[in-house]
């Protein structure tokens, strides 16, 4: 019998360049992608109004009307105010610690209405909204610290505690249609 010894080449693929290929891919993804998180002020728009249905009545005292004109001047319930005062005034309006009959009955009923004109620069509008958000954050932090000992931001998302603080100070912000000028 003839035994033929076949000399086989080893069946291995040279894998040393695999790392280079993977590095190339990695660098491509690093360059073409963004990792920064989008930050901003979140808001939920109200559904469009049905012209046939009357809007529910709102007591005047529960409504804080904020008007901003094109020059960035602010009127709060017909009283001129500066942007830096807005937050403190809002906190007072929502909490109403002295049970003033002109301020909100309860924090749950308080509504903040922001109205601008078409010429208002976007920056001023955002500054205004920022102040309103700041007022609510202050109130929620306070309530959360008093009840659970941690600031509102540290509460777990969609936890019962977070929900309770939200129920205590619901964000009711209305963005009114600007007047046509």
């Amino acid at each position: 019998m003839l035994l033929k010894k076949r000399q086989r080449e080893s069946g291995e693929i040279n894998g040393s360049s695999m790392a280079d290929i993977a590095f190339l891919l990695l660098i491509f993804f690093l360059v073409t992608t963004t990792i920064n998180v989008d930050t901003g002020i979140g808001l939920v728009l109200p559904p469009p109004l049905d012209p046939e249905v009357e809007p529910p009545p709102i007591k005047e005292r529960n409504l804080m009307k904020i008007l901003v004109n094109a020059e960035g001047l602010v009127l709060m319930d017909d009283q001129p105010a500066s942007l830096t005062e807005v937050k403190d005034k809002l906190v007072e309006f929502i909490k109403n610690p002295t049970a003033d009959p002109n301020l909100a009955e309860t924090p749950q009923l308080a509504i903040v209405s922001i109205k601008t004109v078409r010429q208002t620069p976007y920056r001023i509008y955002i500054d205004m909204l920022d102040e309103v958000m700041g007022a609510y954050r202050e109130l929620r932090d306070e309530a959360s610290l008093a009840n659970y000992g941690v600031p509102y931001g540290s509460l777990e998302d969609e936890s019962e505690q977070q929900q309770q603080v939200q129920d205590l100070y619901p964000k009711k912000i209305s963005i009114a249609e600007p007047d046509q000028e």
Partner: protein
Amino acid sequence: MAHFQKKQAGSKQEIPTSAMPDVVFMLLFFFMVTTVLREVTLKVKVQLTQAENIEKIEQKRLVSYIYIGPERLPNGQLGEDKVQIDDSIIEDIGAIRTIMYDKLLEEQRMIVSLRVDEESEFGLLTDVQEELKQASAFRVNYSTRREN
């Protein structure tokens, strides 16, 4: 006379690199999963404004962007305020309704991120918001930078 012989190292002095591709691939997949591809080319100038009380949007896949700002003209100047969605400038504001409604059908939990130039006037934004209401895309986010 004693004869000293130099001891030779028995094993090879090499670090095994066979696991390197696996490590790099793991890194690669990590980046592929946590990031999204670079956004659209901007045809409008958007200089974001600053705010203090802001939130982060962690789920980037839910976000669709609307850019509002002065149009960049070919000669390097700035034109009128325009609205840009994805890669094109929307001339007809009424078209936003159908575009956003289609996007909403694809992703029910969509958040519309409005990236508006700080010098823009509020009027155009109102028109866009009105269209968003009609498209029942109610969750919006005013994109801002963090105040220092």
